[in-house]
């Protein structure tokens, strides 16, 4: 497969995952898909379980595909749907990551983005990097494959 088609295939994969995530968020109760996003690990921060430099580079590329696909799809693809989509793509490639759901402090609240979700790996935000402050509510971890 040529590089161009390989890139298009990734954007198509991202688009499918975004559509799937949008349907999931809109129609299925959170409890039924929460565990698919990862597991909670109290007291263990994402930065303590770093992924390799190669995986981090690949994860950043995939995040760009998700953003590109989201811009091309009709309707709005919100942060949680994008994060779920990237999370599934990373899991498929066994790249460790964390999906974080967070809230703005009350004093800074009042906009459309009072609640936010993003994906991070090795302590770096890969997708959904909005200016804070944010208070983390839920962090769902997916481990890297053992190598």
């Amino acid at each position: 497969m040529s590089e161009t088609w390989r890139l298009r295939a990734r954007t198509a994969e991202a688009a499918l995952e975004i559509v799937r995530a949008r349907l999931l968020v809109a129609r299925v109760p959170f409890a039924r898909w929460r565990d698919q996003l990862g597991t909670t690990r109290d007291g263990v921060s994402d930065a303590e379980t770093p992924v390799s430099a190669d995986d981090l580079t690949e994860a950043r590329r995939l995040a760009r595909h998700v953003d590109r696909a989201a811009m091309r799809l009709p309707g709005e693809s919100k942060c949680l749907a994008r994060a779920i989509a990237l999370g599934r793509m990373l899991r498929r490639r066994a790249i460790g990551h964390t999906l974080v759901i967070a809230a703005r402090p009350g004093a800074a609240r009042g906009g459309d983005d009072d609640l936010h979700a993003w994906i991070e790996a090795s302590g770096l935000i890969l997708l959904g990097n909005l200016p804070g402050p944010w208070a983390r509510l839920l962090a769902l971890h997916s481990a890297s494959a053992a190598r």
Partner: protein
Amino acid sequence: MAISKAQGKFVETEIDDEVVLMDLESGNFFSLAGTSLAVWQAIDGERSEDEIAALLADEYDQPLERILSDVTDFLGELRDAGLVNG
């Protein structure tokens, strides 16, 4: 009857003078501040509704009857949301 938080049903985080709860079943968010936060923090699995009201009446120097009404209403909302038992 003692009121207890429905552990495992939610996650919470403190932000300034507020606690934000996320219901892990529904994905809904709740913001607790002021009196509602004081009630939430008074729920320790041992105090009853009356004891929580008495604690807050003392803390806020307000008549017990008035506080009890507010506490009852708020605990009802928390029960409806499945966030407390008892």
